[in-house]
């Protein structure tokens, strides 16, 4: 039982690391693209700044929605591990 739990926690920790890494990478790439275009736009047409700022908020929010949901899932695996609960339930059923 303890060995199974250790395996579950270890695998979850590795998975969460990978998940957070990719979420951070996606978020960084998205922000890099969005803010470079935003600043280019301001430099080229300063009068468009109000429009661009509003659009950037929406685009940034939409782009970041998916990495943030993935981040939430990673927090779920860390703080309320559903796999560990399944192993405990299986052990209770077996005994």
């Amino acid at each position, binding site marked *: 039982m303890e060995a199974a739990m250790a395996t579950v926690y270890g695998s979850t920790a590795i998975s969460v690391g990978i998940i957070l890494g990719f979420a951070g990478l996606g978020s960084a790439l998205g922000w890099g693209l969005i803010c*470079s275009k935003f600043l280019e736009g301001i*430099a080229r047409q300063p009068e468009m700044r*109000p429009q661009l700022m509003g659009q950037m908020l929406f685009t940034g929010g939409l782009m970041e929605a998916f990495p943030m949901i993935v981040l939430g899932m990673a927090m779920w695996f860390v703080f309320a591990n559903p796999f560990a609960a399944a192993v405990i339930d299986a052990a209770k059923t077996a005994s």
Partner: protein
Amino acid sequence: MSFAIVVMRRVVRRLLIVQMLLTVMIAFLSFIFGNINTMLATLYGGSITLVATLLMAWRISRAGEVAYNDKQQGYIEIYIGAMQKFILISVLMAIGMGYLKLPPFAILMGFAITQLSFIANKVDTQYVPNGD
């Protein structure tokens, strides 16, 4: 106050109203189909989106202000904002799931559904003298 800030305030106000409406709606539905604990969890998830939106709006406003004079500083402001948002959401999720012991799936549902508000995309740049 510059016109860009006035437009930004309009955008943020509209976005926050849509997010609040979505939060209340999902909380009501989760109360009907679940229980009070699920409702609190969805409210908590929606509140995380509201706080994150306010933080992002503040950082983008600052980036827009400083980008006039220093483009590099604008980049830095946006990246600091993105990092702050990432950390803020991690901490708030951890508090909700780990410390408050709210149902994780309901928190995620509340959070994910309020993110749909970004689809309600409208930037009102109409000039109104002495008004925002």
